[in-house]
């Protein structure tokens, strides 16, 4: 029987401090008060003073409430029974079915030894040309979607999840609108994917601290499936809410903020989660697709900025389409050399010309006379946006490449596209 402590000496924000002995760092405790029992986690030890973050929030906690330490850290079940189920940010059932307590595993485990990783080699087909052709998604990649509120990022997530050929989908919702949660659930259900999905959902109305646990829980579950040889896709929406929860706790703990109130270890905190994406040498893989909403569409905001330095590229979702500039898949080179010989050439040439189109647009808007070249670019840009960029387009990679050649040939002469002559000889469509 573990000892119960009654002396809470400080309550600030969602953090309480209690005097206690023999407590371990990161240990869990139960706080029982007027509003029932809540979980809490040790976040600082100083002599006998133990600070804990309370998951359900500190509202209504009294100075003589009971704190009982559990002698273990946060755990989650790693069993197959999770499939098809929905849980909250504490790992408790959210779908009116019993909790799952078998096969418990720790969350926030150590990082994977780089020597046990392999170079990712498998493309994930999405049938979205802006991804498949220009920024190929690769198994075991970690990739955020940078976006602003109101963009269809959750729709894009579910579309990729359904198209991708993976064994298990783990969905983590952080500060998710309840409507969005229901939409996710319905979309997955309609396509028969619910039975291979595990959901950990923290909605906007749940206590903030619970949000902090969601990524770790999702990734611990993903890891346990990947170690069993499964290919897992982990969807996290929205990581900015996670970062804001970190900020809230660190400010309560009176840590010196680095930029815009975020803690100095924001980079390491985000990296510890994203780096769980892995292709194991001799087991399965974890691919992470996350949503990072950019406050004020500002990519230099600390959350998207730190994220960009951690992840293997990013997709910018703006005005309902994936922007070619700034969007990047760092792993595309691992796969696009082996899809079709013209893949890289088409990818580079079309984006370069689209950049030229953009500067021509500027010139046009200033009322300058359009040269022949400008006219060609204008024609090209319009077709590129309509036939390639639109998210309504749903075609396989090969059809996308063929379409690229056709657009180029319709708009330009051979020498104007900056592609090696041998590729031109092989692929340039004759009129």
């Amino acid at each position, binding site marked *: 029987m573990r000892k119960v402590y009654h002396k809470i000496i400080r309550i600030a924000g969602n953090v309480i401090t209690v005097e206690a002995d023999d407590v371990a760092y990161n240990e869990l405790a139960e706080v029982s008060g007027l509003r029932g029992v809540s979980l809490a986690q040790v976040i600082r030890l100083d002599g006998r003073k133990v600070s804990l973050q309370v998951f359900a929030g500190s509202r209504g906690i009294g100075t003589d409430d009971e704190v009982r330490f559990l002698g273990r850290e946060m755990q989650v079940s790693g069993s197959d029974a999770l499939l098809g189920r929905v849980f909250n940010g504490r790992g408790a059932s959210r779908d009116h079915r019993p909790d799952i307590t078998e096969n418990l595993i720790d969350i926030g485990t150590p990082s994977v030894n780089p020597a046990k990783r392999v170079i990712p080699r498998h493309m994930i087909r999405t049938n979205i040309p802006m991804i498949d052709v220009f920024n190929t998604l690769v198994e075991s990649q970690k990739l955020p979607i940078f976006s602003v509120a109101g963009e269809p990022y959750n729709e894009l997530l579910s579309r990729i999840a359904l198209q991708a050929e993976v064994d298990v989908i783990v969905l983590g919702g952080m500060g998710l609108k309840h409507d969005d949660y229901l939409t996710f659930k319905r979309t997955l259900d309609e396509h028969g994917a619910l039975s291979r999905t595990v959901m950990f959902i923290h909605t906007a109305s749940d206590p903030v601290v619970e949000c902090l646990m969601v990524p770790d829980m999702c990734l611990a579950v993903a890891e346990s499936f990947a170690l069993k040889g499964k290919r897992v896709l982990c969807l996290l929406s929205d990581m900015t809410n996670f970062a804001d929860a970190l900020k809230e706790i660190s400010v309560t703990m009176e840590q010196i903020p680095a930029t815009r109130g975020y803690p100095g270890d924001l980079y390491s905190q985000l990296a510890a989660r994203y780096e769980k994406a892995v292709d194991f040498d001799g087991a399965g893989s974890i691919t992470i697709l996350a949503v990072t909403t950019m406050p004020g569409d500002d990519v230099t905001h600390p959350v998207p900025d730190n994220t960009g330095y951690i992840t293997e590229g990013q997709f910018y979702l703006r005005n309902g389409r994936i922007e070619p500039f700034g969007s*990047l898949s760092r792993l595309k080179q691992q796969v696009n050399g082996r899809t079709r010989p013209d893949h890289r050439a088409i990818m580079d040439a079309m984006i370069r010309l689209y950049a030229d189109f953009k500067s021509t647009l500027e010139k046009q808007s200033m009322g300058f006379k359009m040269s022949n070249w400008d006219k060609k670019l204008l024609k090209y840009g319009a077709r590129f946006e309509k036939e390639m960029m639109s998210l309504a387009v749903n075609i396989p990679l090969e059809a996308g490449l063929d379409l690229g050649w056709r657009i180029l040939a319709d708009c330009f002469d051979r020498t104007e596209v900056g592609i*090696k002559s041998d590729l031109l000889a092989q692929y340039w469509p004759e009129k």
Partner: protein
Amino acid sequence: MAEKTPVMEKVVAVNGNMITVEYTHRVMQNEVAFVHVGDSRLKSEVIRIRGNRADLQVFESTNKMKVGDDVEFTGELLSVELGPGLLKQVYDGLQNPLNLLAEKSGFFLQRGIYLSALDRTALWDFTPIAKVGDKVRRGDRLGSVPEGIIKHYIMLPFAWRGAWVVKSIVAPGQYNIDTTIAVVENERGETRNVTMTQFWPVKIAIDDYSEKLLPEETLVTQQRSIDTFFPVAVGGTFCTPGPFGAGKTVLQHAISQHAQTDVVVVAACGERAGEVVEILREYPELEDPRTGRSLMDRSIIICNTSSMPVAAREASVYTAVTLAEYYRQMGLNTLLLADSTSRWAQALREMSGRLEEIPGEEAFPAYLESLISGFYERAGLVKLRTGETGSVTIGGAVSPAGGNFEEPVTQATLKVVGAFLGLSRERSDARRYPAIHPLESWSKYKSLVDPAKLAMARSILRRGSDVNQMMKVVGEEGTSIDDFIVYMKSEFLDYVFLQQNTFDAEDGASSAERQRGMFDDVCRVLESDFTFADKESARVYFLELRQLYLDRNYMALNSAEYREQKARIDQKISGSLKNA
């Protein structure tokens, strides 16, 4: 040396990866201590002492640690082991070999496991240099062993001050690294056994040389925009700041593969694990054209990726530079590539925050600048006491927050480096790789090519950019044909020379000879007076010329097709000259 009995103290506070210990015995700043948590011993380092309390950063997760846990002080500073067998190794920031660790603990990096940095059983072919009776001092060569193609000298440990006399030395033969290969005695009559290895504290530079020289020779990296436009010197320093996605890591990989140097130390500091995996898996397969052996044979990889403990990240850059200095002492040219120094600075910031120090700009500690300059100053070309030269060249990637070069880490770095290769978002968006900005970057070192011609090429780039800006205001029709041609020339130079396709075997690496030839050929176009009827025909001409040059970039130097292509280019140029 006598075994010290470990000094035990107790933990009194835990805050993230910082712990506080109340001490009763002597403690040293930067002393290494082990915290006993359950069955594991977690390595940590003293970073501040106040009153009877010492603050320590723990190089591992502090999970499950309790107030009252034992802390064992070692009396040693954080050190690395130096000796034959360092090459080809993959270490974490504390010199733990990752491959062995994987054999021992599987998929994950379990905390508290520290393995020997060097293989203790491998036999090395030792040839003595020193003789019995020789007077030697620290750093003097007692013998050598072949390590791959490198002659690895066994030196009297750098920490052994004073004059020593060789009392005995073993005969040529095969020994492991722990064999006593010599016995030496100092003036006070103290005798010590010399083995093939020694320890050196990472945060202190190895200073055993007669003088530091001015770096003058160009380090050939085979990247055209570096060697020709913004060169790096052997023994110099450079930095590559850039926003994310601008190609810092790809550029660093290209340099580490193609640089003409003896030893490359890659420090992956707080970056993505996936990028290290590429090196780990690919380098053993890639051939180093200089030696005909695998690239791994000349490489050491220090890998402390972003999810590995943050305190060890701070140590990793020091571990890396110490290894580079060690090989420099053998008269070799070494190159250290650190990706990224910003992550190292962030590790300092995290600890500084936990120590509740008064923050400087963007919450970085006030001593950031002196630490950064101290690190880059460990680079240099030195004259060893043997008369040979050796060098450490340091290249650091910088990841400025928001891509803004005004931030403290970039600014502190710019003050101390000899070359600034600024990567720009604008260029990477337009897929102009490497995205080194040709107008904003600078270098204080000597280029591979004639400075007068280089100045001419630079002025074309500058004027071309001016014309481009002007055209955005006055439009193409408001631009004179002469200006327009300058713009086309600058674009031509950019496309066929500055841009380089890293992923192509030919184009990815241009030897010094090839670069000089290419640059002369490009200059012919830049210097020529062309005559065109109108802008449209000028554009068409330059696009065709560009195609000819681009195709040649993918051909092997001096091959038959290369020469044919050159003939085609000559014909194309002479056909449109004003005076033709």
